[in-house]
């Protein structure tokens, strides 16, 4: 399974990417929403496989996470991409906004790797373990 991690912090991209790789994902990353759209557009144009999961930070320069969620949701070709906000924005109203915009799940920073895996499990996006 493949994930796209979008966060303006390289440290967070590495932390989230590391958790995803430990769970069996391959990972691509982007530093903001516009860069993420460039990745998705290029993948679509090349006929490549879109990410199964997009982990999206909220507060980013150029294009923030909420705008990105709306842009992904608006494109029918990208409907299969599951979007999870990964953010410090924890107020109820913000969570409602994100889910209304099209996000499928919400992860509040800080989080443990186990809590992250639990969210993916809820989404049915925990890669199956290789048979022995």
């Amino acid at each position, binding site marked *: 399974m493949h994930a796209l991690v979008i966060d303006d912090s*390289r440290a967070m991209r590495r932390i989230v990417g590391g958790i995803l790789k430990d769970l069996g994902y391959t990972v691509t990353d982007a530093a903001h929403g516009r860069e993420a759209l460039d990745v998705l557009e290029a993948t679509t144009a090349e006929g490549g496989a879109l990410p199964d999961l997009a982990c999206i930070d909220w507060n980013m320069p150029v294009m923030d996470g909420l705008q990105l969620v709306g842009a992904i949701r608006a494109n029918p070709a990208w409907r299969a991409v599951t979007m999870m906000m990964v953010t410090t924005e924890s107020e109820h109203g913000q969570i409602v906004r994100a889910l209304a915009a099209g996000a499928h799940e919400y992860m509040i920073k800080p989080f443990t790797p186990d809590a992250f895996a639990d969210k993916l499990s809820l989404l049915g996006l925990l890669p199956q373990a290789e048979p022995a």
Partner: protein
Amino acid sequence: MSLDVSVLVGAEQVLDIAGDVWSSLAGPEEVLVPLPASPAHLPLDALSAWVLVLGPWSGAVVVTTGASTALELTRALLRAADDEELTAEDVTDALGEVANVVGGNVKSLLTAPSVLGLPQVGHGMEAPTGEVVVQLDLSWRGQPLCLSLRSTAPTGVRGPRTPPTDPEGQP
């Protein structure tokens, strides 16, 4: 409408937040130790990272530590090997993210909607000044670190002052 943040956010809450942030970002075994009896003696090359909180209370959440500590923290956040070369940009990014996550969680304690700015990093003196609401002097891996909440507007201010008038409306 203004907000008296000191009623909503205290030192213990900020310490709890910081502890969770450290164990999540730097590693589950990492701890922050309060220095109750003495201030954190920060070196002259101290770096600060901060995020602004804008709303009924406006202020800054500031993380300050020595340059070498910031580098060590960066190595921990990036899970970088001891021999991996890290850049000033890496340090700026990592310290900024720490301030971002601490600041975001502090913001969540406020009862009124607020906006969190993007993290900024500079030398210690460049951080926003203002009335200190909370200051935590801490030790991480034996090195000093300071976390503070600072109001960038006077707390409890309800609006522009108007001169008192007498009962007949004369100033």
